């Protein structure tokens, strides 16, 4: 599925909307700023494995890397530094807003509901709550990381 998604970005995404979305939405873990950031290191690490990766999987990972290289060459402006205002503006024009990477630490109280709506007829209750947490600026280098988070 990942291979097809990158293939679609390379071959069919004429207005780059799909690529811009992947380049702006937050990454799945604290190890990467954007969703895009884990893909290339993951493929490289899988290809470096001596066992456990079939030939078919190797072909998929290799093709993903080839497609990423093509995208970098063809759409250079989109792969600039995300701290550069021009690149940021270009990505956010069609993609999501780039969020600053923060680590969310412990809850420090202040848990309260700020809006609760009830639909008794349909037995539904919807609430928006506020939870105070400590945060710190995160500086992920991209890709995968095995470092343990201290002071859990």
């Amino acid at each position, binding site marked *: *599925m990942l291979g*097809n*998604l990158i*293939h*679609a970005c390379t*071959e*069919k*995404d*004429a*207005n780059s*909307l*799909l690529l811009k*979305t*992947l380049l702006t*939405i*937050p*990454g*799945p*873990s*604290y*190890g990467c700023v954007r*969703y895009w950031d884990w893909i290339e290191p993951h493929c490289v690490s899988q290809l470096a494995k001596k066992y456990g990766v079939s030939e078919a999987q190797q072909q998929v990972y290799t093709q993903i890397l080839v497609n990423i290289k093509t995208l970098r060459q063809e759409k250079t402006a989109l792969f600039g530094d995300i701290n550069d205002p021009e690149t940021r503006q270009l990505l956010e024009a*069609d993609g*999501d807003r780039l969020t600053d990477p923060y*680590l*969310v*630490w*412990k*809850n420090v*109280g202040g*848990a*309260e*509901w700020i809006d609760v709506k009830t639909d008794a007829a349909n037995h539904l209750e919807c609430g928006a*709550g506020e*939870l105070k*947490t400590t945060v710190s600026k995160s500086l*992920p280098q991209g890709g*995968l*990381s*095995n*470092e*343990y*988070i201290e002071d*859990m």
Partner: protein
Amino acid sequence: MVKADPSLVSPYFDGDLDKLDESCFLDSYSLQAMFMDGDQKSKLWLQNLLKDITYTNDLQILIGHLCWKNLQFSRKAGKVILKGCNKHKTEEVMSPILIANEYLTLKDEFQRNRVEWMLGLPSFEFKETHGNNELLASLRVGCQQIRECKDQVYTYKTNLFPAAGGWGTPDSFL
């Protein structure tokens, strides 16, 4: 009879506009059912066609043509494609994944919607701790619920289905 509107000719239609006025090979009920919401048959034809890789190329064009500038049909097709992508058998997954490529890159004013439906919306993960009646106070977020940096703190949930996020909801692409 299908009436042609020249201003709404999708980039996938390369035939003769006049031919659209010819009688359709489908009977009137089947034709209506294709575009009727709430009718099981409205999705059945697509579900069946997606099971077989033989029709993938034609289906890509058809899906592109029907979804172009059509939010309602795009939503309907999105549900079927996403469900197809969540199947376990390799042969059943191939066609939906290939068709999703076309679906995601179809250029019109609703492309953003289609991308969000397929890829899902990023949602911050949280977990409830047991033994605490106060829901908000019992929530664990971020570093509190993971062991390593590489553990997931964001999930990508689709809002295509009514009970989104519930048990049985198909996973999004991401």
